[in-house]
Structures are given as structure tokens and as C-alpha cells.
């Protein structure tokens, strides 16, 4: 297909503290007990995109992620894991791996994407429209994870939409305007020249940028070379390409026309109008995913909870497991005590044990957890090797590997870091708890 894929897998994301740790970088965070990165990799594999570069932040993360990938995908994918320093941004990461890029088009995917939108469709749209860049846009889920990173599900009272402002042409194929919600001030500013060139523009506030972009390699590399300041693909490179679509400074052939900066494009008056007008444009396109498709990014603690819940629930087909008649997934080796119930949309993995009279609803429980009697777990994620003693009550929380909850601990909307111990009878509400 002559497509190369760059997966931006990240490292120790600050937004996900305390869920991430030395042992558990962001790409390996479990979603229904599988690393989140596996969802992207399998999605790409399904579209026959097997030539991948996975970019992670930091050497140790690269080792961990590389180890996992080579184990899991040894003869399925051709994956190279590249480490880049932290804080170089996604654009910097692309620059770092630029010498590996040779294909005609590059697909850049965020490693935290959990979706069933086929990347092949995005790639095909990109080719079909001969675009400089094609972005995957998803219709924002009504109550799903919010686009904004900082807010943890509490911005319901907020009046203004934080979603992106996206301008499309009337066929909804071409992208005419993008602005991230947080960057838009009081007014939405639209370039008149782009509106004029397209007659009309549909401005949408309900589309989420899924961080999957197909770029023409030559154009991408030219932008990266010329604009050294550019830090992020979403915030710099992509908006820049959309903004300059009518006065393209990059040539389709990849060779800059006028030296390095290309800004001082001199106009030859004798050239016929149409030729100049068409020559100076590049196309920015959008692939808008069908409403029924699932598309979320794991970029906040709230999103982590939501995605885990969705993957064992309404978007169950993503998990790759088969559901039981009770609409849940209980590993055969899991042990349940008497009068213990595991509700629908739950997952209980290998070797975990539950005591008597427990109740689990809409939660994911990892491997080899030991859970005592009279424990209630609702709307939560419990990772591997967690010990929960009798009478605990856990709601809306995340409990990381090897954590220990002693008797009668009550947690509401908390995150318990790896290996953390909660003493008898302690109660917490809406707090991140982890070792310093």
C-alpha cells in the first residue's frame, strides 16, 4: 500500500498519574486487561498496515514496550520501536524518526486510540482525494470522555463547548478550518479567502480529532524542516497545513520552489489566473467516522475509566473476548465464593478469587487478584495482583497493580497507585493515592 505508520505511543503521561508508573508506562496501561497499544496495533493489522514505527518517550519505556511487542506480535507485524527524549512533542518525535520514513504516505496514529474505525478507510480517502493531509474525525460521544485533558468529567455545567471547531466544505470531504476548542477565544475566526474559495463552509463543534492523520511524506517533511518551532502535530503542523491550503508554500513534488523559506513567492503577472490559483493549493481532507463507530482516546484518568467500561460493555467487540450468556467475561480459572455475583458488562480475569457475598458491577478485574468477602466493586478497574480484604466498598475507582486494600476500606472516585497500601477502615473520596 506504500503507507508507513508512525504510532505515537507516549511515555509517562502526566495526565495519567498515578496510573502510570515505572513498570506501567502509558502504552501498556490495561484496557480490559490488554495494553492499550494493542488496540491500535491490531486495528492497523486489520487494515493490513504492518510496517510500523512505534515512537515512545524515553529509553526505558522503549525497552518495556519493545519487549512486549516482540513477544506479542513477533511474526505478525514489522515493528520498530524508537525512543525519543521527553518533551520533544509529536512533531519532534516525527523529526527524530524522519530518516526511517520512505513511503509515499505516512499515517500518524496516536497510541492511545481505542477505536474500530478502519485506518485503511482513512488511508484510502487520503489517496482518493490526493490530499496533503487527511484527518480522522469522530462525532463526539455525548457522555464519553471529554476532549480536554485537564477536566475530569466535571465540566457538565460548562456552557461553552470545549470540542474542536472544524470547518468542512459542503461535501464534508475537505477540511477548511480547524481550531482546538481550548484555543478559540470569544470569537471563532474564519479565513475569508478559504470561505470564498469554497462557497460555503459548515462549521461543526461536535467533531473530535482522533489523532489519526495521513500525510504526504514530502509535504510533511518539508513542513517539519521549515518550521523548526513546530512542536505538536495536532496544534502546529496540522492547523498550519489547513490554514495555508490556499497559499501553499510547499510544492507537491517535494522540492521547495523558492529556496528554503518559500515565503517570498514572486508572482508572474503573465501567467493565466486559473493556473496560478490551482497551483498554489494543497488539499486538506477529513474522514468522518460513522456515528456507530467507537472512537476514544485514553488521555485522562476519566477516559481510562470510560474506555475500560465501554470495552467490556457497549463496545464489547473491541475487546476481542467472547461474552458469556450473562454478558460478562469470567475466565474459567477465576474462583467465585458463594452468593457472589458478577453482573453484566464485567470482566474477571485469570486466577482471580472472590470471597463470599461479593458484588461486582460494570467493573474490570485483572489477573490473580485476591478479593475477600462482602466486597462491593462498582464502576471500577482493578488491575493485576491486587489484594482487597473483607468488607471493602469500591466505586468509580482505579486500583493499580499490587495495591493492597485492608479491611473495610471505602473508596469513591479514587485512583490507587501501584503497590500502595490502604490501611484498615480508611475512607477516601475523589483522591489520587500513591507512593511518593
Amino acid at each position, binding site marked *: 500500500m506504500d503507507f508507513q505508520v508512525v504510532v505515537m505511543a507516549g511515555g509517562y503521561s502526566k495526565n495519567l498519574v498515578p496510573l502510570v508508573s515505572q513498570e506501567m508506562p502509558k502504552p501498556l496501561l490495561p484496557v480490559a486487561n490488554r495494553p492499550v497499544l494493542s488496540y491500535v496495533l491490531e486495528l492497523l493489522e486489520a487494515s493490513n498496515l504492518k510496517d510500523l514505527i512505534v515512537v515512545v518517550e524515553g529509553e526505558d519505556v522503549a525497552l518495556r514496550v519493545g519487549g512486549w511487542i516482540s513477544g506479542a506480535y513477533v511474526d505478525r507485524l514489522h515493528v520498530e520501536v524508537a525512543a525519543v527524549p521527553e518533551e520533544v512533542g509529536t512533531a519532534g518525535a516525527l523529526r527524530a524518526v524522519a530518516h526511517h520514513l520512505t513511503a509515499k504516505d505516512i499515517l500518524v496514529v496516536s497510541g492511545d486510540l481505542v477505536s474500530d474505525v478502519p485506518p485503511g478507510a482513512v488511508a484510502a480517502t487520503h489517496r482518493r482525494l490526493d490530499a496533503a493531509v487527511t484527518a480522522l474525525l469522530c462525532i463526539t460521544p455525548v457522555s464519553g470522555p471529554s476532549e480536554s485533558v485537564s477536566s475530569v468529567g466535571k465540566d457538565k455545567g460548562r*456552557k*461553552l*463547548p470545549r470540542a474542536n*471547531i472544524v*470547518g468542512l466544505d*459542503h461535501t464534508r470531504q475537505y477540511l477548511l478550518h*480547524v*481550531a*482546538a476548542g481550548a*484555543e*478559540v*477565544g*470569544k*470569537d*471563532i*475566526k*474564519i*479565513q*475569508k*479567502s478559504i*470561505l*470564498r*474559495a*469554497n*462557497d*460555503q*463552509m*459548515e*462549521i*461543526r*463543534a*461536535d467533531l473530535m480529532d482522533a489523532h489519526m492523520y495521513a500525510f504526504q511524506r514530502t509535504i510533511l517533511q518539508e513542513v517539519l524542516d521549515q*518550521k523548526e*518551532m*513546530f*512542536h*505538536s502535530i495536532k*496544534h*502546529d503542523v496540522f*492547523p*498550519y497545513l489547513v*490554514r*495555508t491550503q*490556499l*497559499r501553499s508554500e510547499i510544492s507537491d513534488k517535494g522540492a521547495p520552489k523558492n529556496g528554503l523559506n518559500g*515565503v517570498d*513567492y514572486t*508572482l508572474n*503577472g503573465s501567467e493565466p*489566473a486559473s493556473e*496560478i490559483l490551482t497551483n*498554489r493549493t494543497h488539499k486538506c481532507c477529513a474522514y468522518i467516522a460513522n456515528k456507530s463507530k467507537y472512537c476514544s482516546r485514553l488521555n485522562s484518568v476519566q477516559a481510562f475509566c470510560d474506555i475500560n467500561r465501554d470495552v467490556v460493555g457497549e463496545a464489547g467487540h473491541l475487546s476481542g473476548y467472547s461474552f458469556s450468556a450473562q454478558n460478562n467475561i469470567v475466565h474459567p480459572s477465576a474462583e467465585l465464593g458463594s452468593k457472589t455475583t458478577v453482573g453484566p458488562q464485567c470482566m474477571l480475569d485469570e486466577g482471580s478469587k472472590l470471597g463470599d457475598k461479593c458484588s461486582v458491577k460494570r467493573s474490570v478485574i485483572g489477573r490473580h487478584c485476591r478479593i475477600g468477602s462482602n466486597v462491593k466493586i462498582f464502576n471500577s478497574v482493578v488491575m493485576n495482583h491486587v489484594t482487597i480484604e473483607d468488607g471493602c466498598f469500591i466505586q468509580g475507582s482505579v486500583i493499580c497493580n499490587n495495591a493492597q486494600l485492608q479491611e473495610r476500606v471505602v473508596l469513591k472516585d479514587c485512583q490507587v497507585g501501584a503497590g500502595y497500601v490502604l490501611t484498615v477502615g480508611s475512607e477516601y473520596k475523589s483522591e489520587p493515592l500513591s507512593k511518593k
Partner: protein
Amino acid sequence: MAQKKTHRTSSDDPEELTRTVLQAVLLADSFAQKFRPITLERPKVLLPLVNAPMIEYTLAWLESVGVEEVFVFCCAHSQQVKSYLENSQWTKQPGAFSVTTIESHDAISAGDALRVIYTHGIIRGDFILISGDTVSNMSLAKALSEHKDRRKKDPLAIMTMVIKHSKPSALTHQTRLGNDEIIMAIDPGTKELLYYEDKVDLSQHLISLDKMLLADKSALSLHNDKQDCYIDICSPEVLSLFTDNFDYQHLRRHFVKGLLIDDIMGYKIFTHEIQSSYAARVDNFRSYDTISKDILQRWTYPFVPDVQYLGNGLQIKLDREGIYKAPEVVQSRSAHIDSFTVLGNATTVGDNAVISNSVIGQGCTIGHNVTIEGSYIWDNVKIEDGCKLSHALVCDGVHLRAGVVLEPGVILSFKVEVGQQIVVPAYSKVSLLPQPSKQDSDEELEYADANTGIIESPSIATMMNAQKVDFPTSDADRSGTSEFYVSGAGYIWSSCEGGNEDEWRHSIAPIPADKLSESLLNAFADVDAPDQDTSCIPASGELLPDSASTVGDGEDYRDSADFEKEVEATFQRALAGVDLENVILEINSLRLSYHMSHADCAGALFHSIMKAALVPSYSSKNDLYANAVKEIIKWSDLLKHYLKTLDEEIEVILKFEEISVETAREFSPLFSNILSCLYDKEILSEEAILSWAQEKEGADESDKIFTKQSEQFIKWLREASEEEDGDND
């Protein structure tokens, strides 16, 4: 017209039990001057459009869509309009369709007109607001029922605007009707109008939409390809809104924009887009030309010359290739009439004349070997042999002598005569009436008293000379006409505001190629211009040049900088001799408008004073010091006005520090001297200086330069105050 009456009466809303009469308000005054000089003598609505007065098209359409009561508002030349209507079929015929005139002489805008209509209290329900120069054949039933349905659900939906697809040219930014491009934002679901910008400012590269527009909806569509038809279905509230907001003048610029911005009342405007039917308004000469052609090409059917609707009682015949001929045309065998041409009744065409794409009125005489192309010749025009007319508009009674050439875009008003072999330059406007001077630049007026403000005749003469026009015009004093009469009669009007520059935009003549290529280059400038500002901004996640600077501290800073500039400008005026009291008044108003404190005023003022001290040349420090002292003494009264409290005095010292470090380093060696001078002149109190020194004690070393410099002075002050304290004890 009887044929259309019958099928209309049945279309009334069946659900409406109390049937209201559908009313219309027809503005028989455009409140614009685009058709001058013609409109000095005849109101625009009575000007012939393909040999029928424009108002006929509008009235005929209103009748065809089931309107039963029309109020014709006349202002300019109201007598002419009234007498025309009295003699027309509209008032004579009995039946459901009634035409009533309302007259006002002091209305200068559509807003005024609607206020007058409101005071008459004649509008009882939804009505159609239309201007008397609109040509349309759309069916109103759907728009009307949409409007009524919306009204039932939401009483705030007070207006429905009719729009039509029309893409403005990318080069000239105007539609084929010669209107400026319009940018509209419309809710794709409800068709609510959210944003309206006509007279799009080309220098502005960005459209600003309020983010709140998207607060309760997920999408809106922005259109650059719509044309406003100026046909509005209004609810009675519209009239009262005009009355409440007495400053609304223009229907679009004030009323529509006013409603869209105002979110307190929450009134909503909706749009209705027509697809296949026709609606356009004769707004300028270019639209006159375009609409005439549309009528000839039958886009406006049934309102075309050969259908009996306009009461001219003549059986006009349509030949092949769109040639319309009235019965009594006398045409030479050798004359060649080309496609899309109308020949009016009793017109004679001489040998070898060539007429194409033109409209010729009644009773015209066209001589031999005349060429007429794309022109509009009204009634009783005499064109002698060998004339050449291209894209000209020639009014009633004009006499062109042999060999006259009218270049594209020429307008000849009533009864103008042009002498032999004269070439009238492109875009000239010639009238028997002299041009009123531009002293009342109130462009909203269609008519003006011909007696007031006439440009001095020499100016016409000089203009003529300057242009080297070989076209003598009659002088203002009619005594000397005989001499000029041989060659012609009329004044060449100098082009109105905007200059010759924009004449081509709204002219009948097609846009010349050189203008097109010129605007092509401009179009590139347009696209390129924002290049600089977008490429020079730091690429740190911003999107648009000013999105970042309008938030947070940036704005604050800019405001205060602006404020300082304003104060300085005011101060400059004070230097130029404006009264001190007025300066204080001005600064106070600036303070209020920028939300500044007295301290800011004092600081800014002090800054200006010190700047003024830098203006005279100085050779040494001592000179500069002397200058500064002089300025300080001179303005001490003004300054003291703002130094009422300690805080303000401290602000002045801080400001002084700031300027000595940043803008005017010349003062830094003189800091302590000037400080003591300020103290001597009782501008600053010792308390202020001491508390400033105290404040600075804890500061960085770099901040302490000036306290150190003034150490002695401060020490002296301290001792003095201690002594004083001691005395008091």
C-alpha cells in the same frame, strides 16, 4: 393579470379560521443615490425596466402571490408616484387587490419609513416588506407557511428573509447583480440566520463568529454564495422594533445586524432559500443591466414583455432569438436586429442600423448606420445617423446628433443633447440638472432639492478641461446656451464619492479586462497578505494571529499602552494651546472609557510631560534638567489635579523610574535632581517619596539604582521629617 388571480385565492391557510388579509409594504424609495442623476427628475420605481416601470413588476408579483393590500410608501417625488398609481390599473380596478399610498417627506431611510407606517397603525398581521424595484416570480406560499408555523412555535421568530444562491466573483467580490458579497451564517437545521455581513470588508481577512453561536448547536454553515433578495416576510413586531430603536435606519446594516447581536430580546430571523424561481432587486446600474437581460431571457416568466401583465395594452411579439417587437415598429430592411433586443412601439430604425442586446423604448428614432450594443434607450430618443452606442443608458427625450459615440457605461439623463461627432467618455453621467454639491454627504437620500448646494459651475468647466473632454456643456447661466446649444446641453457630473475608481463596478458596461487583471493581482495580495502575520507568529500552538493576544495579560497590557498613547495625544493638544480645563475633561473621559484609575492618569500624564521635556534640543545634562524643570513647573497644576492621594504620587515616582530605565534613559542621571525638584514644587509630598524609598528597600539590587542615587535627598527628607516629629512632641 386576471389569469393569476383565480388560482391564488384558494391558497389561503385552511387552518386559519380568522382570515387575515395579507398585507405588503412597498417602499417606493430606495433611500440611495445610485441612480443619480436620473432620480433627480423621476423616482427610481418609475424608471422603465424593459419598457415598464419597475414598480409594475413589484406590484404584479405582489398581486400574483395573493397579497391583498399594498401600502406604497413614497417619499422622493411622491407626487409622481401618487399620480402614476392613480392613473394606473392598480387603483382603478375593483377587487381584492388594493393599493394605498402613504406619503412622507422627512423620511431619509427605510427605518424612518417603517416608523411612519407604524404610526399609521394599518398593519394588522404578518406582512411582506419589499422595495419597489424588486423583480420576482417566486411563489410565496411555502415561505409564508414556514414563517407562520415558526411563529406559532416561537413568537420570537419575527422575520423570514428570502435568499437565493449566487456566487460572487472571486476577483471583484461582487455578485452578477453588482451587489457586494455577503457572508451569512445559517443554522442548517432550522435555517435561522446567525450572522450577516454585507459590505464585506476586504481588508479584514478573518470572519469573527461568536463562539456562543455554537453553544447549543453542533453545526452552522457559513455561506459566501447567497444573495439577499430583499424580500422579507415580517411580523408586526418588526415595525415596533423600528420604533423602539429609533436609530435603526438601514434594513440590513442596522436592523438585521442589530437583532443578531442583541441577545436580550432574543428575536430571531430565518431564511428561506428559493431554488428555481427568480428574485432580484435593481440596486444599481449593473443590476439594472443584469435584470433587464434576465427579463429578456425569460427567467422572470410570466413577467416578460410579451405577456400582458404590465398594463401597457400593447401586443408585443416575440420573434426568434429573443427579439421582442411592439406593433408599430418601422424598421428599415437593411437594419439588422440581433438577439435579445426589444423595440418599443412606434420606433423607427434606419438603414444599416445594427442593434443587439438592447432595449429601445417607445417613439424612438434611430438613424442610418447607427450601432447600438447592450444599451438601454428609453422613450422618444432621437439618435441621428452614424452614432455608436455601447453599454449606455439613455433616458427619455435625449437627442444624439450625428456621429456621437457613447463609450461604455455612459448615462445620459432626461433631455440631454449631445452635439455632432462628440465622443462621450466612458462612465460619464450627463444631466440637464447641475450636480448638487456633496456637502450633505448623507448618501441615504434619493432626492435632494436641486436648488440647494450646487457645485460652482467653474468646477464643472475645470473638470471638463482637466479631462480634455471634447464635449462642451451648457454653462450654469442659461443666457449663453445658444452657443453651446449647437453642440449640446447638459452637465457632466463628476463621479460621486468613491471616485472614478469604483465606477466600473456598478456600471452597465461589462467589467473591463484591465480591471479584472488588476483585481486578480489584488486577489493574490488578499491571499498573501495574512501570510506575513501568520508566519511571523510563534508556532506555539496558536492558530490565528490575534487569538492569543486577546486573552489574559496581553489585553491588559495593550489597553494600558493605548491609554498612555491617548493621554499623550491629549497632552499634545494641550501643548498646542487647548484650554487646561478641557484637557482635564478629556483625560477624565479617557480614564472612564479605559477603566483606569487616577493613578494611571497621573502616571501617563507625567510620562507625557517628561517626553515633552525631551523635545527641545539640549546639549548637556544641565540643559535637559532645565527643560524638565520648566515643563514640570508649566504643568504642575495639571499634574496636581491627579495627585490627590499618596498612592498616585507613588505611582508617579514609579513611572518616573520606569521611563528612566526604559524609554528615556537621558533622565536616569538626573533622577534625584528632578525628584527633589518635584518635591520643591510641591508636586510630590515627602511622605510619598519616603514610602517609595521604603518600598524599594526590600527590592533587588538592580531595582535600587535610583533609591541609591537619591540617597542623600531621602536621608535629608527623613531627617527633616523626624525633626518635625520632634517639634510636634
